[in-house]
């Protein structure tokens, strides 16, 4: 085995071990993420908004009757209102 290979193996081993165990020497830390629950509510809101947009598109291009469009749109609006209310109450709690 040549010297360069030996040096590379040494660096690889020491580097890997040092990199992996470094967090153990930190003081107590916690997960920095924004709450998954709030993220989930925001995502739900965006999905429903997108569904409303697609519904409008379907209605405009004639894929939906007016009755179906209005019925579904109102249902989606009610759903999104509930989600927005939950987001607000979550923000108030924080």
């Amino acid at each position, binding site marked *: 085995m040549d010297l360069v*290979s030996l040096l590379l193996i040494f660096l690889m081993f020491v580097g890997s071990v040092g990199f992996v165990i470094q967090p153990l020497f930190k003081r107590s830390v916690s997960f920095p993420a924004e709450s998954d629950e709030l993220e989930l509510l925001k995502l739900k809101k965006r*999905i429903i908004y997108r569904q409303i947009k697609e519904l409008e598109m379907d209605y405009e291009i004639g894929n939906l009757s007016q009755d179906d469009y209005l019925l579904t749109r109102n249902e989606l609006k009610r759903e999104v209102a509930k989600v927005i209310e939950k987001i607000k109450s979550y923000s108030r709690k924080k």
Partner: protein
Amino acid sequence: MPVVGSVALSLGLGFSILTILILAFYLRTNDYRLYLTGQRSALGVSVLAIIATLVLINELLRSNFNVDYVAHYTSLETPWLYKFSALWAGQAGSLLFWLCILAVYTIIVIFLYRNRHRQLMPWILIVLTSVQLFFYILINFITNPFEPTSANFVVANGNGLNPLLQNVTMALHPPTLYLGFVGFSIPFAFAIAALITKETNPLWIRSIRRWSLVTWLFLSIGIILGGWWAYQELGWGGYWAWDPVENASFMPWLTATAFIHSIMIQEKKNMLRVWNMVLIILTFALSVFGTFLTRSGVLSSVHSFAESPLGPMFIDFVILILVVSTALIIWRLPVLKSRKRLESFTSRESGFLFNNVVFIVICFAVFWGTIFPIISEAVRGTKITVGPPFFNQVNVPIGLLLLFLTGVGPLLAWRRTSKQGFIKNFTIPIVAALIGLIIFFYLGFTGYVLVSMTLIVFVLVAILLEFYRGINARRRRFGENPAQALWRMIRKNRSRYGGYIVHLGIVFMFVGFVGAAFNQEKEFSLKPGESEHVGEYNFQLKNLREEERLNHYAWIADLRVSDTHGKFITNLHPEKRVYFFRNPDPDRRQPHSELDIYEGIIRDIYSVFTGIEVEKNTAYFKIMINPLVWWVWLGGYVLVFGALVSLWPSRRTI
């Protein structure tokens, strides 16, 4: 230097075990420092796999024949591109390449979701590292690419790469296929993590939807490139032969296609949760199974499969994936079951569900046809070959049903389609298809060709109608000109219209498939100056030339192609080559036919230089007239473009 690669593989194996243990310990203690340690350890496992791959690439480019793998798959004459592509030419290298791609994907996952999916991430990393561990075990103990050359003499030159693999398309085909195969590990890891943690919210679905689409795109490109390579290189005039290697990539593509349709229903309606889990798991299991089929030697013989522990280990791994996943699904069934039901049979949800069933039926037929020869050889000792007639007989009618559903889907509304809506949306496509049916019937088409052409018209009109209505709606509402309306409509609804463009690509491909029914073929010999007719074309051998090149010797035929009236069309130059022609052992010299194809929208003229009798100055040819093949490749381009439109991030990505 190879020793650095070997040590990296050994360290990677050790670190992958360590990663799983640390993350398991974190799940017990909830000490976030342990999570960070586990995360870094997973990064280390991945970086070590990449280091090992880079070392092997270095050895291949340097032609270090002290490494057995390098001596087996390259020679001094091998061009550098093919020295590089030799990385995935053999078993050991391709498994390392699998591991390397998974390592890159794992690093991306760690960076993308370092602050998200708090519950899921430890399990995702455990699953991904477990898959890496499996490949580390294979590479370290069964098929190590850094194994030294076993010869007791100095190897002056290597065997060289198989001439069939010395093709640019073939250099690109395996990496794209592997990017697809391996990519499904990520949705699988998310699914397993979600099952374990009882996570049913749509957050993780959002994360894997894009992953699935990206990996599906890679798999699609890989399959198309494979077909292209077969067409340009193998010389039998086709692009798809239902070969087990082709089927190995087609099966996960089918389940993945079903998944990227049904995942939309889960995202929008929170339905089909169990079904989607099944599809993700099946797709990943089929990806591993595909690697097993192509890399275990089982296709050539059950006995060669049994000689090495590699095949049994792959089978055990696939069984483990299926057993653990099924147990998890059963365990979480009460959580997964959706309370929502399909509201109507005539809804887009129903259409998607129906197309899912069709995809699975095709997948099962392909699976059965692929493994039947293996089972027959294992049980009865004789291999019963299942050829294209079986696959075509079963899959053509189901494929046509799928084509029909491709047209029906966009015409159905979400939730329910009213009777008036149904009549309004279906009238024009049905009328157009009926007109098409009459025209095609009078043109003399019958059977599957007639049905296919009629359905192609139906789907094409259905898709174009969607575009037309969308453009009109925007013009009415915003007063835009048609080009502006089209551009903005697609930009604002990328997922939807990207999907329609993909469907358009599929329709074009079907046009190409139909062309196969009219293929013509003729084999003949010519001396310089002589000519022969094939169909409406005349082939005159103008000249026979010889050339010695870097890694082969070539006889080149100059064929003049003209129509029946003598009008010049093109010159074709197919070649007969002999690779390793300087090898003193005649058995090591490899003959190879390099084709020449004149491609066109209507038909391809496909020429193969099958043989030569030098002393008689006679060349042997196989000429094929292949109508509409060009449409298959056009369909491929359109499909890729559509998928890119769907994937293109909007300013506010959902």
